[in-house]
């Protein structure tokens, strides 16, 4: 039987994160749907990033925090522990401490914590603001300047708040995450708005919004699939690699919180596996065990392409 193969007119952009050198990480560049090696190429392996906060994780489930142990008391120790434990190639730092409902740290304080983490690790960085627009618009320019030369990936730019972070990333040479609420139309529009500011579209990663297993994951999957197919047909405003925050979404589900640590880990892995099949290029994980499993799983999938 003849295999019907889809043709790709245009590949996904390649995005380099981190200082140029052996530690830098490249994602994207594929010309086929995930792991369909007979239809095209996946020149870069999907990457596992491990996520930490810049403060103690007050709302994380006890089981997850227990696994991380005392390290969560100190962000630098946490970063080192997470990287040593998982061998992740990227560290994702969420600056939650700055949020008014958390520690309400000032931008300067937050940046000084970030600096100490950045000095202690030698992997590329993803840095996410606290999620409060007003606070982030003050904080992220300072983050960006502090990390100048790191070629980091910063977020989030959203449809209602993208100018400050896009301008500062442009000035300091960072890449940017554009976030849309499980909506391919808004995703495309936001990428246009950001690139209209002179931002190079090949330096954007898209966050289509992660939904966890059991909480609308199929919807995210179909949005990602639609977006990818359009990109392969030549839509440059959707040709960005995807980043998915798997840990963040799964560990707030009832099942993860109630199911004990194995339940949560399995929930995180199941969601991550599905998102890889939807086209995720960077998966951001919280549980070290889940992160390790995903690295192994990706290796296994990529072996079929060799």
């Amino acid at each position, binding site marked *: 039987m003849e295999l019907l193969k889809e043709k790709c007119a245009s590949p996904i952009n390649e995005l380099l994160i981190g200082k140029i050198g052996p530690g830098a990480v490249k994602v994207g560049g594929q010309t086929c749907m995930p792991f369909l090696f007979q239809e095209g190429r996946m020149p870069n392996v999907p990457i596992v990033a491990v996520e930490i906060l810049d403060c103690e994780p007050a709302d994380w489930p006890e089981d997850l925090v227990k696994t991380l142990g005392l390290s969560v008391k100190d962000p630098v120790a946490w970063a080192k522990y997470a990287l040593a434990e998982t061998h992740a190639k990227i560290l994702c730092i969420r600056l939650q401490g700055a949020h008014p409902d958390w520690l309400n740290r000032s931008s300067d304080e937050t940046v000084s914590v970030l600096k100490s983490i950045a000095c202690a690790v030698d992997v590329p960085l993803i840095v996410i603001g606290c999620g409060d627009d007003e606070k982030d618009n003050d904080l992220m320019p300072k983050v960006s300047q502090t990390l100048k030369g790191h070629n980091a990936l910063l977020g989030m730019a959203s449809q209602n708040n993208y100018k400050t972070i896009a301008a500062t990333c442009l000035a300091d040479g960072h890449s940017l995450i554009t976030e849309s609420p499980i909506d391919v*139309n808004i995703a*495309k*529009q936001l990428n246009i*708005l950001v690139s209209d500011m002179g931002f190079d579209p090949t330096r954007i990663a898209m966050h289509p919004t992660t939904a966890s297993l059991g909480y609308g994951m199929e919807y995210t999957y179909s949005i990602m699939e639609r977006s990818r197919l359009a990109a392969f047909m030549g*839509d440059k*405003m959707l040709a960005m690699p995807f980043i998915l925050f798997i840990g963040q979404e799964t560990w707030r589900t009832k099942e993860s919180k109630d199911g004990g640590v194995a339940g949560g880990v399995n929930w995180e892995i199941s969601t991550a596996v599905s998102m890889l099949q939807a086209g995720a290029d960077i998966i951001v994980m919280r549980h070290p065990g889940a992160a390790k499993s995903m690295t192994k799983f990706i290796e296994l999938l990529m072996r079929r392409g060799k």
Partner: protein
Amino acid sequence: MLVIGELINGMFRDVAKAIQNRESDIIQHLAEEQVSAGAKALDINIGPYSKDPKADMKWLVESIQKTTDVSLCLDSPRTDVIEEGLKVAKSKAIINSTSADDEEMDEVFTIAKKYKAQVIGLAMDKSGVPNDQSKRVELAAKIIAKAMDFGIATEDLYLDPILLPINVGQDQEKTIIESIREFRQLCTPAPNTIVGLSNISQGTKTRSIINRTFLTMAMANGLSAAILDPLDRDLMDALITAELILNKNIYCESFLEAYRKK
């Protein structure tokens, strides 16, 4: 939708003059303008006033290729003139055109094969342009069969139902649209379909609205290419919107701008 810019045509006085005086900057400017307005190919016609059609065709192709690498649609009633263009064309060219007459098809498909070019096939023959749908479809099928004999893929074939001016063949326009739909069903993969869009509004005073209304109606019936004026912004907006409605592109607020950025 393949947009083929129509403005480099010796029928236009300034283009004829530029060809005659070898003013390549004028031709190149026209090429660049059309490409930046969304043309993915350019029709090149030396026009009826040329004294040395072969040399003019070669010069036009070479001049345009210095400024853009889009496909060129070599438009001449003479196969030897088209071949002069094919000899120097760098990217895959489109031959404009052959009728459904065996002699002409043999000649045109032979050079198409030789230069790996695509071909526009007109649904007409020695007896002229048909005035009914079944004859149009019959001629289109004849062109497809001949192309297959020559080993030319149907993806490389553009079938043209021949668009008649609204003030000449008003009773034919609906039939032409229906023919486009039928052409697409003649084989798998479906052949491309094409029209010389501006024909429909020849001699009218409201050309743009007639052109763009026909275009969207034809697109909804499977039209896949058109030779048109890409500098008509309203026309291009209608084309982009029709593609959107046909789900060829993903909607966003700036969909017109997004298309133009592609």
